[in-house]
């Protein structure tokens, strides 16, 4: 697999200049996620009202893959219902685990599709899924 199948422009853009890396004044829920073995740590901040994810942002440190993945996720889940957001998290994790490969089925992941090839890099799977597991934890506990 070529390196730029993983380190795509989309990934580079989101990791160098994340749109959603900041605190959220109106956060209704914050959740920490970490990969101790890598030293990656993120704090996800969500504004959830009436079963809708109104806003999402994050802070923390991590590699390009985990940072881009988090930023892309924050963008994607804004305006989605809690249920939809959790569905997306499931789908993303399945994609990275290589359990879903059908492009059509994955379509709704939108920009997150750019991370698809991390499935072929076992050592980096943890980086890609960190944010999405954290999201799932956050929404679970928000119920």
């Amino acid at each position, binding site marked *: 697999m070529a*390196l*730029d199948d*993983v*380190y795509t*422009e989309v990934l*580079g*853009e989101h*990791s*160098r200049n994340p749109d959603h890396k900041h605190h959220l004044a109106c956060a209704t829920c914050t959740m920490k996620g970490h990969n101790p*073995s*890598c*030293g990656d740590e993120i704090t996800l901040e969500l504004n959830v009202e009436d079963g809708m994810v109104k806003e999402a942002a994050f802070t923390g*440190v*991590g*590699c*390009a*893959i985990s*940072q881009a993945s988090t930023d892309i996720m924050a963008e994607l889940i804004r305006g989605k219902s809690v249920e939809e957001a959790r569905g997306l998290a499931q789908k993303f994790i399945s994609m990275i685990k290589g359990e879903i490969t059908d492009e059509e089925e994955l379509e709704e992941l939108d920009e997150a599709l750019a991370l698809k090839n991390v499935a072929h*890099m076992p*050592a*980096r799977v943890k*980086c890609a899924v960190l944010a999405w597991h954290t999201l799932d934890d956050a929404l679970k506990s928000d119920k």
Partner: protein
Amino acid sequence: MADVQEFLKDFPLLNGEIDGKHIAYLDNGATTQKPHQVIQSICGYYGGCNANPHRGAYALSVKATDIYESARKRTAQFIKAKRPAEIIFTKNATEALNLVAYSYGLQNVGAGDEIVISISEHHSNLVPWQFVAKAKGATLKYIYLEEDGNLSQEDIETKITERTKIVAVTQVSNVLGLKNDVKSIVKKAHSVGAVCVVDGSQSVAHMAVDVQDLDCDFFAFSGHKMLSPMGIGVLYGKYEILDAMEPFLRGGDMIEYVQEQESTWAELPSKFEAGTQNVGGAAGLTAAIDYLEGITFDRIEAIEKDLVDYALPQLRELPYIELYGCDSKQDNKTGIIAFNIKDVHPHDVATILDNDGVAVRAGHHCAQPLHRYLQQNASCRASFYLYNTREDIDRWIAALKKVRGVLGYGA
């Protein structure tokens, strides 16, 4: 210095391909590759001499016992221990250090006592001492670093006090690659009546070690970092100290008499070797020692120094590279180079290098307190060994130059 050493041919993994690529293996601090002489010694053992040692009255078992006890003698010679009985085989350095923590630490450290370690210890020579300190109500104190990454001489002088019962320190830091003057630390420890535990995991494969000259009370290392198989490690301890200690693991072969309610212990070294030991691993360790001594540490040190001297000036030319432990004011740098690339996380660096078949490690290298002290979340580490070549360095540096580009940063 010839660029490619004639013995490179002995290492099958380095001559083969992994996923279609020749590997520039620069993670020797984590584990080393094995020459066919070592691999052969393991196969030869299982194919022709395998039995449970110490337990049989038949020829095969005697052979296995011989192989096992010869490994002990060879190891004793290797680190210049006074007697073979001072060599205890464990599964790795971590077990060796835990043995000291449980069987010496818990018995000899009390409330209000102090244990002194350095901030650059590997977790395996750190977390066991947290455990002992907490269990006994003792204080765990740290020796911090000078600007250049060496242990603070002032801390050594002031933190080791009359209350200190144990000083535990690594001979070479597995991140900064700096050699500590453990002989003088041992002296300081003894001057206050403390014992000194030396972690030799990063030294024993790279330089001649003489435990009697160091005068350390304990010395721990792993076989797998010195060309041997995994699953064999060594604890050296002074005879009188080991002899006075309680056992650690209990069971077969470490006993003298077992009554229903009481037992007495075998003599050293058996007292600390419970259950069936790794004879195949011991055979491999003997082969590795033979191999290393055949090459000589003078030559190994020269090879590693050549690689460091070749790499460092090139690295310093890259403005986006930050180096750790590379400006020591003492002549004590070993073949370990820790670094970071500006803006890029170490894991991305390792992945990008891996794509060119260059294997370096990324993360905290089991030294979180040191990284926190250096105010780094993580780092990359290239660590050299006798089979590495200038070509490996070239490949490493060429790949490093690509990293920022891959992530869309300017150079």
